[in-house]
């Protein structure tokens, strides 16, 4: 039964690009349109956690949609949700700019909009009740701190050289993490030099190729910062294949299961622990708080702590 549901969900998600689900018997109806469920484990786990959280709460009924990464479809879904007169809309923007007109339309129809995971562009802020998600700039600066602390422990904080592999160019999360890292690193470790920065497009294989080129180009690399662990593990694989992983500090963000395992192996140093379950639950809670008329900060961040080889026992292995 569960399997059938899962398969059916994946089918609709992938082929038609939208899945609809309604559950619970509540006083509030909340619609959510997600970015691209199924494209990676984070988004898949997010959706499952969101549905589970909604089912556990009797006062809410949810309409779960997925835009399949297509901004036009997301705008159409927003309009559908407005037509259905839901009480609130949660949107995981496929594109921070293009979704703004649809958000404004919901705002004009007096439906509060909560943005989840990745924020929309600033000119749309006035139409949004609250943003619920990780603080990517802080994540970037925390990664810089992890890197710097490690260099200090190794006694190389005055000569270390770092390369930086970013996420998809143009993607808000990628830009903000890179900005947080690039701003913070010179503050905590002024003598560490960042010698190169290239995009790995959130893709492990691409990131492996970028790292292979870095290894050829530079004889001396002490640290690698990647915009997420998926790319970080790609870079790690490249260094392992070239027998140069030892002596390189690998730091990522969004701790994936592969990153967690590599930390347990002692080859990968640290990351930022970001749970899709926390992300989904925070989004639902923010929406409910807004509907109940409670005071909600505009930027409602959930905490994403540092995780390194030293404190990883305190965290369970990510499921994605």
């Amino acid at each position, binding site marked *: 039964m569960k399997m059938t549901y899962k398969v059916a969900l*994946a089918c609709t998600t992938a082929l038609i690009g939208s899945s609809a689900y309604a559950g619970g018997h509540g006083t509030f109806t909340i619609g959510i349109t997600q970015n691209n469920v199924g494209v990676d484990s984070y988004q898949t786990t997010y959706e499952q956690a969101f549905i589970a959280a909604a089912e556990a709460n009797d006062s809410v009924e949810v309409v779960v949609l997925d835009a399949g990464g297509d901004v036009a479809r997301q705008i159409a879904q927003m309009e559908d949700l407005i037509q259905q007169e839901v009480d609130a809309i949660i949107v995981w923007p496929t594109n921070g700019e293009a979704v703004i007109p649809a958000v404004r339309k919901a705002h004009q129809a007096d439906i509060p909009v909560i943005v989840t995971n990745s924020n929309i562009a600033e000119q749309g802020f006035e139409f949004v009740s609250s943003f619920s998600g990780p603080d990517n700039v802080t994540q970037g600066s925390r990664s810089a701190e992890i890197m710097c602390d490690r260099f200090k422990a190794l006694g190389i904080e005055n000569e270390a050289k770092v390369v930086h592999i970013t996420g998809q160019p143009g993607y808000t999360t990628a830009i903000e993490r890179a900005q947080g890292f690039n701003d913070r690193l010179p503050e905590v470790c002024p003598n560490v030099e960042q010698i190169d920065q290239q995009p790995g497009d959130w893709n492990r294989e691409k990131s492996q190729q970028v790292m292979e080129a870095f290894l050829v180009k530079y004889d001396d690399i002490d640290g690698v910062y990647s915009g997420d662990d998926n790319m970080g593990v790609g870079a790690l694989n490249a260094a392992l294949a070239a027998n140069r992983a030892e002596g390189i500090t690998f730091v990522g963000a969004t701790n994936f299961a592969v990153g967690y395992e590599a930390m347990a192996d002692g080859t990968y140093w640290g990351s930022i622990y970001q749970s899709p379950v926390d992300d989904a639950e925070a989004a639902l809670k923010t929406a409910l708080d807004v509907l109940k008329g409670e005071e909600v900060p505009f930027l409602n961040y959930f905490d994403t702590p540092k995780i390194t080889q030293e404190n990883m026992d305190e965290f369970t292995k990510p499921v994605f």
Partner: protein
Amino acid sequence: MAELTKKSIGGFLAKQGILVAFLVFMVVFAIANPRFIDIDNISGVIRSSAILGVMALGVTFVVIGGNLDLSVGSMMSFSTIVVLDLHDKIGPALAIPGMFAMTLCLGAFIGFLVGYLKLNSLIVTLGMLSAIHGLTLTYSGGQNMDIADKQNTWFDFFGQGSMLGIPVPILIFALLAAGLSLVLSKTPFGRKVYAVGGNGTAATFSGIPRARVVFMTYILSSFCVATAGLIQASRSLGSQNTVGQGLELEVLAAVILGGASLLGGSGTVFKTVIGVLILGFIQNGLLLMGLAFYAQYVVTWVIIILAVWLDIAAKRGRLWSPIA
């Protein structure tokens, strides 16, 4: 005498224009950064290109046969995810043939639609691009697929191993290229592929079973895709669902860059290999030059168009088209 030399040089250029373009780029990159021709770098680039290359070999047959295959990218994701999943469930020795069988079924299905039902290959494979992506997501439930025990498996041989000092992906690519080159140029089947792509009607009247030939090119293409998926899975022992996304266009670019005609009937395996290497070395060369990534996107395509132009110019013996 001088004339003869000039003629023979001209003849060589006309036949191997793309090879000359390739060598020119190599020299320019090597001057810009001597590390470019470091043996480790060269072997690294060929190793990374092997995945794209193996896929391009199969697509070469499809394109020469007068059709397109846009489904190879998502089919490669499928193979990669399936073999990784089966690895932990039934062991690598059974997972590999199992994955090949499943991928060949997809190839046979496309071959049936395009060959026997004579449907337009662009529409069929474009549709299959999405359908197979959906199939992959359904299969994996959207989760990343990773081999649980990465230390104790011989499965990493195909992507990370080496024999006689040569990385295995390069060996697979080279052997497959050599084998398929023979098939295309020396066997009756190879000639039938050219005939069907060159003039399908004439081929039919000559008694060539057109549907079967087209069917076989798709089987061959899916076999190559399965091999590429095997290398990919073995290289990282884990994968995202979208690992092959967008590769279909790179593969097609490499095949066309190599000089195969989109209309069918011309192209060789050797030239496709050169096309693949040009793409791989351009990307690596630009990275080593330290160009900002947005400049890389532009420069890559400028170079590709330049290469195609050089190739065509060499063939017609002048830079501009004689027809206004």
